[in-house]
């Protein structure tokens, strides 16, 4: 029988695809079932965020940060609020810091739940998605009770958080934690020892620690490759050094390790949430410097200074001294950073958003070369990308 020559041809893994995790146009050059080259085309969700931020005051700009990584909105706001506070030299009261840590970890849980069940769905398991989304709903209910919005909270402001949390909300979160751990156990029984899941993910998309550093990949992805790097431990912010938690580190750097690292991180996040609630300090939840944080509505209606502060803050906004800062946080997807340049006015001069998904998606070609088409799907799912932050 004559040998047939396999010609390479291009496949468009189009922007509309259930496994493309948003709008990703991936042009694949394949020879048969094996991928030779992968060229991601991004920018289909580009909304001009950085240019719009240059035309808004600092507090108005917080809303843009929610909409970057929409699976864990509050972590992005966190980076921006920390950047502004650094430039202004603003102190956040301890209760504000604790509430921020609490909601940042809730964001981490939201993100990892979304990622693991979307990854499992891409690989073929449908049930974790149904179970996890129930708990995402509960977490979003906690977000709504704090600030009124289920998802895009606009909650982390420079100086602390926008509103204080009532004690019964903290009690409800505390009682929810053990139920959540049982659901995590259930999802683990479905996926962790599953033969089919392991065949789809073990030894797929292996990336070494040196490659991760070369490609700028951070977060759970580099921890799965063996590097114990977590900004919450190495460059702590908002009092993270006071909490007792561990960083799971993987060995092989394949898709399976990334999944396991995320599952373990969720358990550690629950520990942090419990510690934050047990040790929640009293005091104000936002800075009492009313030149930066607005007074409450009650104060505004009774005091002339409060009224003037409220007016000035919501029209002109506060002025941030000239300077620049690169502030990074350990967002669930990796290192999310804001490079903020201020020229002394009430609007940022330049606000560059360093999204972790941008670096992770760049490495998709590295991960997928030589693998088959189905593995490309597993790789994209396991490196945890979302197009809101990539395209901005």
């Amino acid at each position: 029988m004559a040998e047939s020559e396999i010609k390479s041809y291009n496949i468009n893994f189009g922007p509309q695809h259930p496994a493309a995790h948003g709008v990703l146009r991936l042009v694949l050059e394949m020879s048969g079932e094996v991928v030779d080259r992968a060229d991601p085309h991004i920018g289909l969700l580009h909304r001009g965020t950085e240019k719009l931020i240059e035309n808004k005051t600092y507090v108005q700009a917080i809303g843009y940060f929610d909409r970057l990584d929409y699976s864990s909105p509050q972590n992005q706001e966190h980076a921006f609020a920390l950047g502004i506070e650094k430039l202004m030299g603003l102190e956040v009261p301890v209760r504000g810091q604790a509430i921020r840590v609490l909601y940042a970890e809730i964001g981490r849980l939201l993100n990892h739940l979304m990622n693991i069940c979307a990854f499992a769905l891409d690989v073929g398991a449908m049930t974790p998605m149904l179970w996890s989304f129930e708990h995402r709903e509960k977490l979003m209910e906690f977000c709504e009770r704090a600030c009124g919005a289920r998802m895009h909270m606009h909650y982390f402001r420079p100086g602390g958080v926008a509103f204080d949390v009532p004690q019964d909300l903290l009690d409800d979160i505390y009682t929810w934690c053990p139920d959540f751990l049982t659901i995590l156990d259930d999802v683990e029984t479905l996926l962790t020892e599953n033969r089919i899941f392991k065949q789809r993910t073990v030894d797929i998309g292996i990336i070494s620690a040196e490659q991760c550093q070369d490609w700028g990949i951070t977060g759970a992805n580099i921890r799965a490759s063996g590097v114990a790097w977590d900004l919450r431990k190495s460059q702590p912010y908002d009092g993270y050094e006071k909490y007792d938690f561990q960083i799971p580190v993987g060995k092989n750097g394949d898709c399976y390790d990334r999944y396991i690292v995320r599952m373990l991180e969720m358990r550690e996040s629950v520990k942090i949430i419990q510690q934050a609630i047990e040790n929640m300090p009293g005091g104000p939840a936002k800075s009492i410097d009313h030149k930066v944080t607005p007074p409450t509505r009650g104060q505004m209606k009774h005091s002339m200074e409060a009224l003037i502060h409220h007016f000035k803050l919501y029209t002109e906004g506060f002025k941030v001294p000239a300077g620049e800062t690169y502030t990074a946080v350990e967002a669930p997807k990796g290192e999310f950073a804001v490079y903020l340049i201020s020229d002394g006015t009430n609007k940022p001069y330049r606000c560059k958003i360093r999204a972790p998904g941008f670096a992770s998606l760049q490495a998709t070609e590295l991960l997928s070369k030589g693998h088959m088409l189905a593995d490309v799907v597993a790789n994209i799912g396991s490196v945890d990308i979302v197009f809101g932050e990539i395209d901005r």
Partner: protein
Amino acid sequence: MDQALTELGDYISDTLGDVVIAQDCRLGELCLTVKREGILKILKFLRDDANCQFTTLLDICGVDFPEEDERFEVVYNLLSMTHNQRIRLKLRTDEDTPVASATSLFNAANWWEREAWDMFGIAFDDHPDLRRILTDYGFEGHPLRKDFPLTGYVELRYDDEQKRVVYEPVKLTQEFRSFDFLSPWEGVQRMLPGDEKAEDTDEDAPEKEAS
């Protein structure tokens, strides 16, 4: 911590004195201004030297200062996981002068440089694939420049006669209002507004004091 950073900055400036123009350590962040021609040399040094080991290139971005001759500033943010340090490199260029691409040293630079090209028009030499990344396929212009308007020049709509999406110049139904509530009062000034006339009144003393 600032001490360690200043020492690191001094070490790098001493070793690569011909490349580093200025060194600044503010708010706990070290920033080196470098010459455009020396960027690859200093990036390689920062990556390979045992005291530095900045193996992760986190971000390359552009900043536009339209009033200056060399209007673009290219900023590199690096991280050393082994030493737990961050550093920032800045260089200046203008619209016609390309910058050497860092892709030969860090693979991560690829897309960040494409983005700087797309958003500002900063060209990079020896980049393997310098094409637009975030804007639309036939887009003209570089959006993040300060002279590019916020509303852009063209907008899209679906034309039923041509049965496809067409580009048309932007028509705003309501005039673009720029809310700039920046107040002229800065708070307590060191030099009160009338004080610069104080030297003049000393010469014209008789008329002023009479009143």
